[in-house]
């Protein structure tokens, strides 16, 4: 029987990018297969909020180990709005990690927001939606949705709102956040360029007292350029990122979707 159950679908995982699930082929003992309900589908997302807009972006590659499963699998989803086209939606959810959980999470949140509109006759605010998403994740904390989520929209004052989550529902509102495979590559870049970390007044004298540059809300064009730079750089350094860049810009007028190709190698 040992020989029989050693058959596995050829989905070897690259060892360096995430933890390998235990596959006890070694050491002669009887091979036991156990079902592991998660996988990592790679990819990366990021979100930046401005004074009157929020931009959420993600690459469109989906991977399994060293395989590119598809070059176009969006990680950005409109939440709410009318019907399957989400007409009039003003909230965007991005999910990265285990794609099937991401899809399930997206469908649940969308259902909640649609029912809210049906029952209350008005759209859900991003603030409320953000808290609801946290509860959905937390309720499944013992069998979590294996995703890093970023939620974006416009708050009740018309200011860009961005919320980031861990897989079990811990969340906070931020100016910018990168998630997924290349988060560790993109986040320091955003820290530096958006929150102006490690940038000081150029003319001030050297020393500990040297004043930090204060972050200012960025304009839309600058943010779009930052996003493109972040992703073109991530593509160079991470094999699970590439193929296409999908961007959603949320303003008071709705959601504008942009797509541009990335390197396919």
């Amino acid at each position, binding site marked *: 029987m040992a020989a*029989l159950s*050693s058959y596995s679908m*050829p989905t070897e995982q690259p060892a360096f990018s995430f933890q390998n699930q235990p596959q006890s082929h070694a050491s002669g003992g009887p091979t*036991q297969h156990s*079902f592991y*309900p998660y996988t990592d589908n790679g990819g990366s997302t990021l979100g930046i909020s401005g004074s009157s807009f929020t931009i959420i972006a993600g690459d469109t590659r989906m991977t399994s180990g060293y395989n590119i499963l598809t070059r176009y*699998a969006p990680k950005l989803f409109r939440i709410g709005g009318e019907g399957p086209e989400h007409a009039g939606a003003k909230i965007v959810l991005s999910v990265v990690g285990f*794609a*099937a959980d991401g899809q399930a999470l997206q469908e649940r949140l969308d259902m909640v927001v649609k029912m809210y509109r049906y029952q209350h006759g008005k759209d859900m605010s991003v603030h409320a939606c953000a808290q609801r998403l946290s509860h959905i994740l937390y309720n499944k904390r013992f069998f979590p949705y294996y995703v890093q989520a970023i939620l974006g929209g416009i708050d009740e004052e018309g200011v860009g709102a961005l919320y980031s989550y861990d897989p079990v529902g811990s969340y906070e509102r931020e100016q910018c956040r990168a998630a997924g495979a290349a988060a560790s590559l993109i986040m320091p870049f955003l820290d530096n360029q958006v929150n102006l970390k490690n940038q000081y007044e150029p003319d001030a004298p050297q020393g500990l007292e040297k004043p930090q540059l204060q972050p200012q809300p960025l304009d839309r064009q600058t943010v779009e350029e930052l996003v493109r730079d972040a992703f073109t750089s991530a593509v160079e350094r991470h094999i699970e990122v590439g193929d296409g860049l999908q961007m959603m810009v949320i303003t008071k007028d709705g959601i504008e979707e942009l797509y541009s190709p990335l390197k396919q190698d």
Partner: protein
Amino acid sequence: MNHNPQAWGRPRDDVYGAYNSQYLPQHHGGPSAHPTTHTQSPIVTGTSVIAIKYSTGVVIAADNLASYGSLARFTDVKRLKPFNRKAVVGFGGDVSDMQYLDRLLSSLDVQENYSHNNDDPEDTKALMSAKNLHTYLAKVMYKRRSDFNPLWNSLLICGLDEKNKPFLATADLLGTTYSAPTLATGFGAHLAQPLLRKAVPDEEASQKLDKETAVEVVRECMKVLFYRDARSMNEYSIAVVDEKGVELKEKEKLENQSWAFADQIRGYGTQTV
């Protein structure tokens, strides 16, 4: 006489010894701590399924072998299952789970024909499309993985969507879904997918591809898979789905094989020179 009615018609304990109820389920007197067991690994398996979209339809293929580990156990197993006139599902992985899903699809088909009584056979608008079917199967797969009781398959669902445009997508034992102009499961993801992508690098290219070329590319891929996949065989099924319906051939033989490359292979096993 034994006055206990429960004992009537049963083997007598004083003659045969107590009945061994060890293997019975709990409600029939089996052991109380009998755990529910779920599939932990596939047993009889099918290998790759490959498919490609072309301008007006989809071509899908899978061989007719079901393996028991490395044993080529069943050599006449049809792994492409047509669903109404708009969709075909290709099954990789566990064969018993495939048969379960096939029964599920049959009952779904009956339900569909009952509730919407499509009296006009030419009217395909109200028919369940490949896209509808894919969504449904993906939900079934995801539900089962969430119950830690997976259906050990990778599926390719292909056919036409509601607008009669070509549709191709996949669902696997984890409930993961995606779609692309070309798809391949199992070993095909390594061996066939690069060849398919060379023929059809993107969506635009698939819209320009004609049926004959698509079929030719798929047949070529089946040949390469047979050359290199030890769990494959030279008889396969191939289906074309377009507006005319499903055209399924289940007894195709690989043609024009050339094993000239075989003696060039170096570096495996004992052959080192």
